[in-house]
């Protein structure tokens, strides 16, 4: 799956989202569960603001010295016998991986969860040459089985489905015969996946954080599937976004703690694994061959811009879990593998404004995302900055909006004009009002009044009241 997950129009995707009651109930209950758990996990740690500052500092330090740490990481991976490939584009990355696998004459590939492999459209590239690619994260597996349904969340990709829907998918595709009980559903998949793990030739993982000093790959999961993906197949390929690294294990520890608490409200996940290169002499398991693919795909052009802080992201989805817009429309409405506030900032940067220009507007700028972010990315401000770019550089806004804002600029800077306008407002609006309310608004007010009343302007403005009062006129 590439970045873009839908060719439907944004408005149509939203319309589908807000009319999908199943999805909305699943999303709102997940948000509430995760919100509560995150707050508990954060409280428990104590001094959360200090931890956030530390997280921000680590990420900013890495971004400021990215060339140094990438070089160090590559050197250390090579020293341990691994192969490192820097891919400038998505095509280069997935092409390299395909070539490695084809050369191995492999048939089956098992994968652990990875957003960057979605971003580079890896599965489609591998399937096109006849490879059997199996997702082993339960959520990703469900979506894969369900005819490649796109993910709707970066941590819980199948969040939009409830257990009954999953049962039905399994019945149709996997000859499943039991109930919607989550343990039964999971046990069924476990039985299937065990065989896949044992028969796979290549294992592919993402990377939560690479550790530059040791050339290690840090993986965080709750299912343990990444450990099987990396322990059993003879060849391991790890794909990482070029910014996903830390200097040493000290910083790894801090970021993992921020990640697990923010993502799922856990102190730690069930499995936290650091792998260093291929199998050493005397090791009982691990791959014989190891490849690290470091993906740029637009990231380096974000460096040094006003959007650089988005590269601090550790993909925890805390912003998604608190977003009141995501809550109403669900992940698919964003039309990107990266939904929610982080997706609305990242997608136009990595995928271009043509496909994602509406996303920065899908926010009230309420700043819940900024508040929740464990590495202090000013998400709401980056959304606003996107709007600035769309207006000033991309020039993608409707003419009527541009004219209205130009008028605002002139009117709001001129007391005379404002006064004239505000005096005219009550009579200008009077054809539309009933009593003190407007139920069918003209122009841009139409969408407002579809779901709520709009107030008619006060008969006497505040400033007139104040003036009358000061000059001894009769207060109303």
């Amino acid at each position: 799956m590439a970045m873009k997950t839908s060719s439907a129009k944004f408005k149509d995707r939203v319309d589908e989202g807000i009319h999908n009651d199943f999805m909305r109930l699943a999303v709102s209950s997940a948000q509430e569960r995760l919100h509560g758990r995150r707050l508990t996990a954060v409280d428990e740690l104590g001094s959360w603001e200090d931890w956030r500052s530390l997280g921000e500092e680590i990420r900013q330090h890495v971004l400021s010295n990215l060339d140094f740490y990438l070089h160090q990481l590559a050197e250390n991976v090579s020293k341990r016998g691994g192969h490192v490939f820097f891919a400038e584009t998505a095509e280069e990355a997935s092409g390299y991986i395909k070539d490695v696998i084809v050369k191995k004459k492999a048939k089956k590939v098992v994968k652990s969860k990875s957003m960057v492999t979605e971003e580079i459209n890896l599965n489609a590239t591998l399937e096109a040459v006849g490879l059997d690619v199996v997702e082993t994260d339960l959520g990703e597996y469900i979506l894969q089985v369900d005819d490649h349904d796109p993910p709707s969340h970066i941590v819980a990709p199948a969040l939009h489905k409830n257990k009954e829907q999953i049962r039905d998918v399994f019945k149709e595709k996997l000859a499943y015969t039991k109930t919607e009980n989550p343990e039964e559903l999971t046990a069924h998949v476990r039985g299937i996946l065990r065989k896949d793990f044992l028969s796979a030739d290549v294992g592919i993982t993402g990377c939560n954080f690479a550790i530059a000093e040791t050339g290690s790959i840090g993986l965080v999961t709750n299912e343990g599937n990444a450990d099987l993906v990396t322990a059993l197949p003879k060849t391991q390929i790890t794909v990482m976004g070029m910014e996903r690294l830390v200097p040493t294990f000290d910083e790894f520890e801090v970021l993992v703690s921020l990640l697990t608490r923010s993502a799922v409200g856990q102190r730690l996940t069930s499995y936290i694994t650091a792998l260093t290169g291929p199998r050493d002499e005397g090791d009982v398991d691990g791959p014989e061959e190891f490849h690290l693919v470091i993906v740029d795909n637009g990231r380096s052009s974000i460096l040094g811009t006003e959007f650089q802080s988005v590269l601090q992201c550790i993909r925890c989805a805390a912003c998604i879990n608190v977003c009141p817009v995501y809550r109403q429309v669900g992940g698919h409405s964003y039309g990107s593998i990266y939904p929610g506030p982080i997706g609305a900032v990242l997608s136009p940067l990595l995928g271009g404004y043509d496909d994602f220009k509406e996303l920065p507007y899908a926010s009230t700028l309420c700043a819940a995302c900024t508040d929740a972010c464990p590495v202090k990315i000013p998400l709401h401000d980056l959304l606003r900055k996107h709007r600035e770019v769309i207006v000033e550089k991309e020039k993608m806004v409707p003419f009527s909006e541009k004219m209205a804002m130009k008028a605002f600029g002139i009117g709001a800077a001129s007391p005379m004009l404002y006064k004239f306008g505000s005096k005219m407002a009550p009579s200008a609006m009077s054809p539309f009002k009933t009593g003190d309310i407007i139920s069918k608004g003209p122009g841009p007010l139409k969408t407002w009044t579809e779901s709520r009343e709009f107030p008619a302007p006060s008969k006497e403005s505040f400033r007139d009241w104040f003036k009358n009062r000061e000059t001894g006129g009769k207060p109303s």
Partner: protein
Amino acid sequence: MKVTLFATCLVDLFQSNVGKATVELLERLGCEIDFPESQICCGQPAYNSGYTKESKEAMKKMIQTFEDAEYIVTPSGSCAAMFKEYPVLFKGDAEWETKAAALAAKTYELTQFIVNVLKVTDVGATFEGKATYHTSCHMTRLLKVKEAPAILLSHVKGLEMTPLPDAQNCCGFGGTFSVKMGDISGQMVEEKVCNIEDTGADFLIGGDAGCLMNIGGRIQRKGQPIKVLHIAEVLNSI
């Protein structure tokens, strides 16, 4: 104490009652109110829509308007937060950056001013009824005013406050968002209003005219008897 009132454009045009209540309340607390007529709008609608250049014209006008003020008080967390943001916007423009910083330093949201500057926690108000409070996003998250409204309301005689479920979620106003993404905004305000209904409160109190216009509009459309009030109106009830 001399207070210069920034009424905000929404209050001036649509909710003059809130402005009146703010004036009377502050006067009762011993303040002398000044209202410079050249004030218009903080510029937020244009700024948040990406029209930074256009918004700066409005902002410069506001900086000039309030240049001589000692304390600027506004019955809006959102507009106060916008004033506080001015220095960032004028960064690099030496003359205006200094002026913007001066403006930001003396700007207070109404309840913040009463609690932190006037050092008053009981304004002597009496208001009979059961109410719930909408914590507006910009007031709590951008301006970081979280306690002051609750402190003041807790001292209002006769007022029973009941907590609002999912209070942290935005009501869906978001300025131009409410018309640009009217369908999503409508869903958000519906959820907010359902939560308000569930509290069994007769009154919904808030500190930002934008949110109140949004929530109030939905309550009216549904024909609910819940009355929407700005906190200034409650604190001004004696």
